[in-house]
């Protein structure tokens, strides 16, 4: 439970410096954000970086604001900040729900949104929520370029994401939702603050008469990464979200999202949780959309 010795520790103060260091140290280096996933891995000696590039002194990486029709969340925004930010509570309550569900106060005070997405735990709380909102990551490259990648594509598998050795996630971007949109997130875990057995995120847009115009439903706690319940979401489109329809959507989601057995739960139980939770979360999302 003690990490292997590291050779170098850097605490750069701006993004350019981070990128230079990445270029110099490349595959030997690890970026340190909240440390809530990296440090446990290092203590278990599952990660043995020679160089640590600590992001915590980098200025202006934790901004949360809307710009050009998109929500920008800085890479270093802490879970606790996202859970309590007025703008997010107002327009993206789904994200606040997810952030609030992570671990315990200490973990929420340190852990960051980019750290969570890069870490890519299939049972983590952010990934389904950010996917449901069609979130993207803005990635800065050491050669000076940047790229933008949808979270759906960024998540590659359990603890695997599409990040290069010379890349830094600088922010998460989410399109500002259309009018009459609402989202919700719920998770089932064995004890409070634990990783999900199953979690469900839903984002809904209604037309003025209450008909569903657009829906996305994402399920976490499944392998190899959170799964979109596309057919379930499709069922909702163009319809009034009454109870029988929601039940149907739950059935559809349980059918289409594949589940597996592990220590926490069986595949069959996971499917049942999807069946039961999808209607509840969609109902809450549509209530919020109507408000």
């Amino acid at each position, binding site marked *: *439970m*003690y990490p*292997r010795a590291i050779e170098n520790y850097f605490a750069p103060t701006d993004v350019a410096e981070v990128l230079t260091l990445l270029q110099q140290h490349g595959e030997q280096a690890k970026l340190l954000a909240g440390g809530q996933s990296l440090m446990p891995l290092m203590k278990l*000696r599952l990660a043995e970086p020679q160089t640590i590039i600590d992001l915590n002194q980098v200025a202006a990486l934790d901004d949360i604001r809307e710009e050009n029709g998109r929500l920008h969340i800085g890479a270093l925004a802490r879970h606790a900040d996202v859970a309590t930010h007025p703008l997010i509570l107002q327009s993206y309550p789904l994200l606040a729900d997810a952030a609030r569900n992570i671990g315990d106060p200490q973990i929420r005070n340190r852990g960051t949104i980019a750290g969570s997405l890069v870490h890519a735990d299939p049972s983590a709380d952010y990934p389904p929520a950010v996917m449901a909102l069609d979130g993207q990551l803005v990635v800065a490259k050491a050669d000076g370029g940047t790229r933008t990648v949808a979270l759906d594509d960024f998540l590659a598998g359990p603890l695997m994401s599409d990040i290069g050795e010379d890349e830094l996630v600088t922010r998460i971007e989410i399109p500002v939702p259309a009018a009459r949109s609402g989202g919700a997130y719920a998770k089932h875990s*064995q*004890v*409070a*603050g634990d990783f999900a057995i199953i979690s469900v995120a839903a984002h809904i847009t209604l037309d003025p008469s209450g008909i569903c115009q657009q829906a996305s439903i994402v399920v976490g706690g499944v392998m190899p990464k959170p799964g979109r319940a596309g057919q379930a979401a499709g069922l909702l489109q163009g319809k009034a979200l009454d109870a029988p329809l929601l039940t149907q959507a739950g059935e559809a989601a349980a059918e289409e999202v594949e589940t597996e057995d592990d220590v926490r*739960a069986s595949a069959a*139980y996971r499917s049942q949780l999807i069946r039961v939770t999808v209607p509840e979360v969609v109902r809450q999302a549509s209530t919020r959309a109507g408000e």
Partner: protein
Amino acid sequence: MASANAWVGQSIKRKEDRRLLVGDGQYLPDIVLPRMVVMGFVRSIYAHAKITAIDTAQAAALPGVRTVLTGADVKHLGSVLSDMSTPNLPGETKRPIFWPLSIDEVKYVGDPLAVVVARDKYTLEDALELVDVEYDPLDIVLDPEHALQPDAPRLYPDWGDNVLYHQHIPAGDPDAAFAQADLVVKERFRCHRTGGQPMETRGCLAMYNPGEGLTLWLTTQRPHIKRHLLAEYLNIPHSQMRVIMPKDMGGAFGTKAPLYREELLACHLAMKLRRPVKWVENRQESLMNVGQGRDQIHELELAVKKDGTIIGLRDRILADCGDARTAIYVGFAMPFLGAMYLINGYDIPNVDIDLTCVVTNKACLTPSRAFGSFAGRFALDRAVELAARALDMDPVEIRLKNAIKTFPHVSAVGVHVDSGDFPGSFAKACAALDYDNFRKEQSEAWQNGRYLGVGFSMGVEISGVPSEVLVPMERQPGFGVATVQFDAHGKVQVAEGDSPHGQGHETTIAQVVADELGLSPEDIYVTYGDTHSGPFAAGTIGSRGASYTLSAAVLAARALRPKMANIAAHLLHIEAGEDDFVFRDGYAILIRDESQRVPIAKIAEVALLSPTELPPGMEAGLEHTSHFEAETAGMHSCNVHAAQVEVFPETGEYKIVRYVAVDDAGQPINPMVVRGQIHGGVAMGIGNACMEEFIYDENGQQLTTTLLDYHIPSSLDLPHIETIEHNVPSPHTPLGSKGKGEGTPGMVPAAVANALEDALQPLGVKITDLPLTPERIWKLIQAAQSKE
């Protein structure tokens, strides 16, 4: 006359808490000695394997590494278990032969096979990775029923089978009882592997010099017992062995009662290297090695009359003891006591209990709060519930019908229960739950598709174990002991032989001694933990604080009063004795003329600082040691717990809406401390019953070696625990006080399971297995529905 009772019964704040809350606690890892080195273990990655080669060269060559030892290097120390360190129980016992490090063969994942000593923890872990072990895997046995099969792999080939311990406990005429029964309830119950996981893991620090010998700072519940076992094993004079439990310890729950292989090695290495050797277990090691308890299968039958009277019980108990290589308890002492306590608060005259303890390729069972009886309490209180249902009888009524009614009571298997009042406890539990109205609420809820239920459990909890039982069983005394000693400034030091670690002795002992001597708890300080400065005692186990140890402190304080009175009379120049004085508010006050008084501080000063002022011929000093032994073969508290739940059948998830604990502390010394014990015990019980489980995969790899996988509840997962006092003072202790807390978790699994089953009556679910995870409940509902 005695003294004015002012402090007993008051919920004063704990003296311990200030230092703990502000971070001034003094724990084992805080102790640092010059030239200290640290120790760590290479542990088996196989559940059962031959060790074909160990290459330590690379590790030994790493700069900063002091030594690397394997089993071969410690074989000369001899096998760990001696007559002294093995329970001496009736029945057939086998004794595994083993060393501090395993030699040639490993028997579970986590089995220590080499030890590395290094200058710091970082170097240590680097070196541990460099020890190269080659294994030749052997067949494994993980399931206790499989372990009994003739063709099962053997842990100890010379035994001929895997049976560690077997005992048959018959009483009365069970066959006749079953022949006369109107109803026989027969069910198989299974309790999984779960137990205790203290916040602070195990650890020790051994220091040696040839002059004074060995000093071992150790996270332990029983410093004196460890001392004599260590001296025996290490073959050094008892005078050269000192054990110190640090001032503070982050919990134990039974896990720090056994003697472990690791602490033997620390001592050996300190002697060999002539350097202080420290070991602090990490969480993975802890989850791999200790806190694994329960793990029993019960095939239980009740013979019941039409009116609900239980006239007979049969139980075939199979306990999975793991590898059985832990001294003092050896994996089977817990199931043994559990079997003896099976019938518990019930008065069942005809009994046939058959206990078989087997070894498997898992970690050895260690004691956990509700020592051995968690599984049996679940099984019996579940079976009683099934009997009630079959007879269409109220669950409270059937329990009252069969509960012990007259005290003192000796159970069919010989357990003495001194005092209690089950009807009174049930009445309070039912009133708190508004039980009469609940049934109406429940049937309305069922009509509306909601599932509410109530479940009860009842039982007796050990209040210390007397010498009469402990001496033959564990070769240890049961008495409580305390030395009460005035200092020269009128303050009082109480030295106890136990080693409290969360039980609040510093506060409760101060309260009782303050009352006996007319002082304030502020004037009393309690010391413990060091075998070289406190009296010999068995340790902090089995709820013996408020029953035995505290009673010894009361008696020792009382014994000082005649001398205090004589000194006071001498200072007042009057003729008077103990009965003429009352001790109150810091004074010895003459009863017939209250203006005649002497400060107690003055009495102490005379006794210690200026003995020239003592009455002629009186010996200086003001101290006394008392050994308290209750005049009975067993003291217990009688308790009733009830859970009210709402179940959500679609997912099997449920909410414990209310948890009511009616507990008997005899005479609570500090009701807040008692409540704390019950809260902690219920929390542990809920964790064990509903959430926690040590899971092994088919290869014997334990899958729950981090707290991410072994799910201990936090306050967010627990209901509000309502505690209600129903105290029946023990006739056998000076204040009527009883021990409290050790047995509490045992009350929980049946209360919750009975409530869940009650709620799900319309769905016809029967609960026989723990843990009560939502998934298990959901599957039971599914199975019941597919049967319909």
